[in-house]
């Protein structure tokens, strides 16, 4: 429907009479055309250029016709004369403006392109910011929705700011005791294999509590949501489908309602289907959800106060503030921690759902908006400069017009019309750029940005951009025109050389501003590039190049027991190892360079804790024997797992150096033992059998942390990532790898696989994207700023031609004149650079979190950026300076 709005806006350029008589038909015709195009992109683009051209032609013809009608009625309607005069003047002004632009094509094109670039880029980023960050979430009264979660204690003892997951029992307590929260629901993203309906398929699913849909304020479009009875361990197995999934898998067949779907081997009855407009918060943040079911039905540990694995979404009670809810939840968390001393110390908290959904991305987008804003400043400064130059050039023309009897207002209006026409042309180009830009942003931005599907060029944003470009256009044509007019009160005075101190001062200021802002952008882009290169060259501590991975997900009755899974995994490792070219085989539950991790408390033997203390926390992974060899990680001490480890429960572990240092500082970790959880937990002790080096498991940018590895051949995990190191190209082994797994069970979907180096590249797509974007802004800004410096200086030289000619005639050498002009240009550039360095240092903190391995005040980057800009600016100044030095004194003097 956005498109219709755009077309409706386009219609505004037609005369009102045509719009009122044929508006409805025009819209209908547009809809007909659009239907034919049917969403195909290239055709859409062609259609819009056709429509825009058509509208421009039609508007020109219709206005001419309208004018003709008025002229024809002249005699009959004298009272219209005023209006007609106005229109005639406007047409005259317009025609004059267009003629003058045609004569100064270079000027007009430069101004329009510059302004359009600035406005278009700003509109693009602003549209994204608006759609992603500012517009409310798509639920009724969404500002009352909050996420409820747990603040855990970090290893240093303080409560973390991050909201972690809750235990389901804690949610029940929130529901029953809270007065600030009207209702609260639990949800948990899971994955299930759909079988028995043609091809088995792996689905993203969510287990939710019965209140889930009520809290969000939505209902299924067809059927119903879950009842309280169904949300119990012995409740009926029912499911609600997402619209997309229903459409894709069942061709939107309403008869699906009441049918039975086999999910992970369990039959579920379809009781509802959501409408197409429902985007669950999980989908906004992570991934799409195909279907929902009551999670009490599928999770065993819903009564375990020590397992924190659900997200809480709540609706604030009427009249309750977020602060009140936070205070109440914090108190509740304290009470729970005291009542259940066996569970980790925690504090409950709440944050606005909107903030949680778009939180991290916000900073990236604001940074981009800052960058694009700087670009806009430079673009406006550039255009202002151009317009100032034009105005000065036309001082004499204005004086002549004034002398011939043109009124002040008439002359000013002429100038304003020109400014407006320029700005409007730029606006139209900018609108096109913004459409392309938003489309490109949506297509090329990596997955990290939520809600992008909702983003479009917003008419409000567009109007704002047009206003901005018009304001620039008008302000910088009117201001100099008025000044010139004041001087012109004394018509035909000498205007050629004494072009006004004010003009010089404004232009100098513009050069300084442009240089400063461009340097800030340039430095920012330099820092990001620098940081990105470092990120690319980080050694994760394991082999990336020759490793292939394949995710295996075991579900259903056949794999209900750990023994069954262990048997499958053992067989899988053997068959994968038998593939030609495979050098080593292993596997892990958390694929390296994936953000998920599991943290656990571990208590080394003999650990004594104070009453309020928690044992040290270590992140842990389950791995198959051979994993370290497959990843090229050496065993520093002790041994790797064997096939027998884990078979009789997990009693052995490997640790990395950081964990060894944390748990047994200064001691030999091999042979040491610990218990999982708190010292009094009563779990079986685990013995350390080996030590491996620290690797970057989570992200390339994150330093290694204390980690331990447990044997996965226990079969306790249902989802594992098979890893193989190959002699040649790992991609070549992928198909054989899948065949090998299918040779054991042909019913597994196996949709996720790839090479580790691709996976590593994907993990830094996001920094790559915004680095690229900001660098583009910086490059454009740099070019604009240099053009500005060049243009201004060239113009100054032109204005001073006579003075320079006199100097040359009086014996100054070319080099002196060269130095004179260069000094003037570079003084301004120098001031701008100093200002730019100061601003860069002041705004550095904003970039901090985007940088890796480099500080935002990195002196090297600043110096290089400033030096590079100085060199480029020198080159830009050199051209007019050389021209000045080569002036022939006689010609210049004669020309005046």
């Amino acid at each position, binding site marked *: 429907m956005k498109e219709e709005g755009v077309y409706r806006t386009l219609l505004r350029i*037609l005369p009102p009479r045509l719009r009122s008589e044929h508006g409805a038909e*025009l819209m209908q015709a547009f809809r007909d055309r659009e239907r034919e195009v049917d969403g195909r992109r290239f055709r859409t683009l062609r259609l819009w250029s056709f429509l825009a051209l058509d509208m421009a032609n039609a508007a020109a*013809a219709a206005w001419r*016709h309208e004018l003709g009608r008025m002229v024809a009625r002249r005699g009959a309607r004298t009272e219209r004369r005023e209006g007609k005069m106005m229109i005639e003047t406007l047409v005259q002004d317009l025609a004059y403006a267009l003629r003058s632009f045609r004569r100064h094509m270079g000027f007009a094109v430069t101004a329009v392109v510059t302004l359009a670039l600035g406005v278009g880029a700003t509109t693009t980023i602003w549209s994204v910011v608006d759609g992603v960050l500012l517009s409310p979430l798509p639920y009724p009264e969404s500002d009352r929705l909050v996420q409820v979660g747990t603040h855990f204690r970090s290893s240093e003892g303080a409560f973390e700011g991050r909201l972690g997951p809750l235990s389901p029992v804690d949610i029940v307590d929130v529901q029953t005791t809270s007065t600030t929260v009207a209702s609260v629901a639990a949800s948990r993203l899971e994955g299930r294999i759909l079988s028995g309906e043609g091809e088995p398929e792996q689905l993203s699913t969510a287990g939710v509590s019965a209140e889930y849909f009520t809290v969000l304020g939505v209902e299924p479009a067809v059927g119903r949501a879950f009842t309280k009875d169904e949300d119990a361990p012995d409740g009926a197995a029912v499911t609600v489908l997402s619209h997309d999934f229903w459409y894709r898998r069942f061709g939107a067949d309403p008869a699906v309602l009441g049918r039975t779907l086999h999910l992970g081997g369990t039959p579920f009855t379809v009781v509802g289907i959501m409408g197409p407009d429902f985007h669950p918060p999980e989908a906004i943040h992570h991934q799409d959800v195909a279907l929902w079911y009551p999670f009490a039905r599928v999770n065993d540990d819903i009564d375990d106060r020590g397992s924190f694995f659900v997200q809480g979404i709540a609706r604030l009670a009427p009249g309750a503030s977020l602060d009140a809810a936070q205070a109440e939840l914090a108190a509740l968390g304290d009470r729970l921690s005291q009542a259940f001393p066996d569970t980790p110390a925690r504090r409950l908290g709440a944050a606005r759902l909107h903030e949680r959904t778009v939180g991290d991305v916000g900073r990236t987008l604001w940074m981009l908006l800052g960058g694009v804003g700087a670009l806009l400043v430079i673009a406006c400064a550039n255009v202002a400069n151009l317009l100032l130059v034009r105005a000065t050039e036309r001082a004499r023309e204005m004086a002549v017009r004034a002398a011939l009897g043109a009124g002040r207002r008439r002359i000013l209006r002429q100038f304003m019309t020109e400014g407006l026409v320029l700005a409007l042309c730029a606006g139209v180009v900018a609108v096109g750029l913004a459409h392309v830009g938003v489309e490109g942003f949506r297509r090329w931005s990596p997955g990290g940005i939520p809600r992008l599907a909702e983003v479009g060029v917003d008419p409000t944003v567009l109007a704002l951009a047009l206003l901005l470009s018009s304001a620039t256009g008008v302000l910088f044509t009117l201001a100099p025109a008025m000044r010139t007019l004041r001087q012109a009160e004394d018509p035909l005075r000498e205007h050629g050389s004494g072009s006004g101190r004010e003009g010089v001062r404004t232009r100098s200021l513009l050069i300084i501003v442009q240089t400063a802002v461009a340097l800030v952008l340039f430095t920012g882009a330099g820092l990001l590039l620098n940081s990105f290169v470092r990120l690319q060259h980080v050694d994760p501590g394991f082999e990336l190049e020759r490793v292939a991975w394949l995710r295996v997900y075991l579900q259903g009755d056949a794999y209900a027991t750990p023994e069954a899974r262990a048997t499958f995994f053992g067989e899988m490792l053997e068959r994968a190892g038998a593939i030609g070219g495979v050098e080593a085989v292993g596997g892990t539950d958390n694929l390296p360079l994936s953000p998920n991790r599991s943290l656990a408390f571990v208590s080394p033997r003999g650990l004594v804790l104070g009453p309020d203390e928690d044992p040290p926390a270590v992140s842990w992974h389950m791995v198959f024997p051979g994993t370290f060899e497959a990843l090229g990680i050496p065993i520093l001490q002790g041994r790797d797992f064997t096939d027998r480890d884990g078979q009789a429960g997990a009693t052995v572990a490997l640790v990395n150096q950081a964990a060894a240092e944390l748990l047994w500082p200064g001691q030999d970790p091999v042979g040491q033992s610990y218990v999982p959880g708190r010292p009094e937990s009563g779990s079986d002790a685990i013995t350390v059998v080996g030590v491996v080096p620290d690797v970057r498991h989570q992200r390339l940018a994150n330093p290694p942390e204390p980690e331990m590895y447990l044997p996965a051949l226990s079969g306790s995990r249902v989802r594992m990532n098979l890893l193989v190191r190959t002699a040649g190209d790992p991609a070549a082994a992928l198909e054989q790898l899948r065949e090998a797994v299918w040779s054991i069970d042909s019913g597994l979907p196996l949709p996720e696989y790839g090479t580790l180096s691709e996976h590593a590249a994907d993990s830094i797509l996001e920094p790559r994207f915004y680095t690229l974007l900001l660098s583009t802004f910086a490059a454009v800004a740099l070019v604009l700023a240099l053009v500005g410096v060049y243009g201004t200086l060239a113009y100054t030289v032109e204005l001073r031609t006579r003075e320079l000619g006199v100097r040359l005639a009086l014996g100054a050498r070319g080099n002196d004149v060269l130095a004179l002009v260069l000094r003037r240009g570079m003084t301004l550039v120098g001031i701008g650079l100093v200002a730019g360095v100061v601003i860069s240092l002041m705004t550095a903190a904003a970039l901090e979190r985007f940088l890796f391995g480099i500080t935002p005040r990195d002196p090297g980057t600043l110096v290089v950026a400033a030096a590079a800009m100085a060199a480029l600016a020198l080159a830009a100044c050199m051209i007019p300076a050389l021209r000045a030095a080569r002036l022939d004194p006689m010609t210049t003097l004669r020309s005046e």
Partner: protein
Amino acid sequence: MSPPDPDRHLPLTPVVFHSLVALAEGPRHGYAVAQEVEAVSHGRIRMGPGTLYGSLQRMRDDGLVEDAPNPGEDAAHAERRRYYRLTPHGRAVLRAETERLGAVVRLAESRVGGG
């Protein structure tokens, strides 16, 4: 107001001429005029919505076409579509233009041969 001299409108622009030709066969709605013009001109004249309705309005202002009752054959669009037909004056103008063009074509043929 007595209908003015048909020759006053000549020569017609290709868009107006083709539109009048399309309407000469009977009442049409706007989109149908555009489609027929595109077909008859072998796609050489492609009228966008703005051009189409702008020229229909001008033709009506000039008394060449007028609103026609909806024949109601197209029930789905009945309430949406507005129909247009030639006025007698419009027919006279079309005839005058056709004669003028015919004369030019004959002259051209006599000079370059063909036909």
